[in-house]
């Protein structure tokens, strides 16, 4: 079997499995998995920039929140329907990522991390400052009537799961196509050796900007869908916590692997879920697990699988 066939089989298989799981999972895990798929889409967006282009952002909450508030404000104050809301979310994330990309990419390395972190703080403080519209920490609660898409009530668990799966499938297949295309190979080349890529004639800045925009738009789309499916748009999602989460998920799952973001999100979600059922010191359990993984599987779970067994994994 060719690498291409194996790749399609594996990723298609994961999607089929997720589709089938909705019929057998108990309600609690059913709800969890819907949430995980949306958050994993956020992580997939993060991975385009960090895992493939090698740009470490500490400010991805900004893009997630841009999409989420783009939708939330349009629906709550503009009276938009969910489709227009999603488009507003995407447009907001697009605008923010172009602006951040143009400015932040003038720096690199640690300075890039700091600049993205600062931009995200500006976003967070702006959400609080414009509390009249955003309702700050309290957040905007979207009513059931505002969450009906083409006659489908997204507050229903079944519809919600399906919408989450659809988002996840789009993000997964989009990145799969991206990294297998020449464009993705150039991003990897820039990650591996930026100067060499430049001296092969590639306009490194343009490629990096494209990576930031794709990453920002996917993250924003995930944020908008999150707001729509779970009906809450709050300042927490713009806080630094939501900049660190996607980094952790991607590191755990495997940076620069297509499936890694999902595996990392799933693993971390259930690690916290299961340990918090046993002890109130669940963050300690999570911390120890993180340290162990960093020590013994520095490439992340999927990254280690690629190193040891399936070398063809994209």
């Amino acid at each position: 079997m060719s690498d291409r066939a194996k790749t399609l089989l594996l990723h298609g298989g994961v999607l089929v499995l997720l589709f089938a799981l909705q019929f057998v999972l108990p309600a609690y895990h059913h709800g969890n998995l819907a949430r995980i798929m949306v958050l994993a889409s956020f992580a997939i967006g993060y991975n385009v920039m960090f895992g493939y282009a090698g740009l470490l952002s500490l400010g991805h909450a900004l893009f997630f929140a841009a999409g989420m508030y783009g939708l939330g404000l349009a629906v709550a104050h503009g009276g938009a329907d969910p489709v227009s809301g999603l488009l507003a979310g995407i447009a907001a994330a697009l605008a923010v990522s172009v602006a951040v990309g143009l400015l932040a990419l003038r720096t690199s390395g640690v300075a890039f991390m700091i600049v993205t972190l600062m931009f995200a703080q500006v976003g967070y403080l702006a959400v609080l400052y414009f509390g009249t519209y955003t309702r700050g920490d309290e957040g905007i609660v979207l009513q059931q009537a505002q969450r009906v898409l083409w006659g489908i009530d997204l507050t229903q668990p079944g519809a919600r799961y399906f919408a989450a799966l659809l988002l996840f499938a789009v993000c997964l297949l989009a990145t799969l196509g991206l990294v297998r295309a020449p464009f993705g190979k150039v991003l990897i080349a820039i990650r591996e050796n930026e100067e060499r890529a430049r001296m092969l004639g590639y306009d490194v800045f343009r490629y990096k900007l494209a990576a930031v925009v794709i990453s920002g738009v996917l993250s924003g789309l995930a944020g908008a869908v999150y707001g729509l499916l779970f009906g809450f748009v709050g300042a927490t999602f713009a806080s630094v916590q939501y900049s660190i989460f996607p980094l952790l998920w991607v590191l755990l799952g495997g940076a620069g692997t297509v499936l890694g973001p999902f595996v990392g999100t799933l693993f971390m979600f259930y690690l916290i879920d299961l340990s918090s059922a046993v002890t109130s010191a669940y963050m300690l359990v999570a911390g120890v697990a993180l340290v162990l993984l960093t020590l013994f599987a520095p490439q992340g779970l999927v990254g280690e699988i690629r190193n040891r067994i399936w070398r063809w994994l994209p």
Partner: protein
Amino acid sequence: MTLLSTRGLSKSFAGLQAVHEVDFDLPKGEVRALIGPNGAGKTTFVGLLCGRIAPSSGQVFFDGRDISHLPAHKRIGLGMAYTFQITSVFGRLSLFENVALAARRRVQGTAAVRAEVMGALAKVGLAGAAERAAGDLSYGHQRLLEIAMGLAQAPRLLILDEPTQGLSDAEITGFKALIRELSATTTILLIEHNMSVVMEVADQVTVLNFGEILAEGTPEEMHANAQVQAAYLGTG
């Protein structure tokens, strides 16, 4: 017909004149060797040509066009290729992918890229190792991979910075044959320390010393030039 020339090209680093007022002309189709003692400014000079380093003053012309203000990737796009002195390959990618990245700037489509890549790898004798990671190669083979990446760009001007460093005698013999074959279609500028390579493949030699052109001529003339000998032996 001149392919590449510079006028008054200078670069100083914190007061040190690495390259000073260099007027240089390279005719189309020539193999030019750039030699000079360590620290003569050879690598800085070629860095100025291909845009890796910004000049302090002066101009660079390529094919009659002033390219002094073009960024590196645009100069490469005009048909220059540059191989690094300190091996700079994509270590975690396969040899195939390394060369494919160079080839895709020029050709599209899986089959066409594959043909270009395998052709370039075959020319340096690495076709059998196409699927290996570049970082696993010996230093000499990484040098050859660099050359293959240059070849895959089918450049009009190929700049090689010490290509034979770390190669075995047999590989150097192969390299000389490759340069002779290429010289039919490509203008070549190579920085070289190995005098047997200079004597056998270069049409003309430019000697740099303290950032200035000390002498220019055929390899035989340079070999016999007293000033050049003095510069190398440090008795000038």
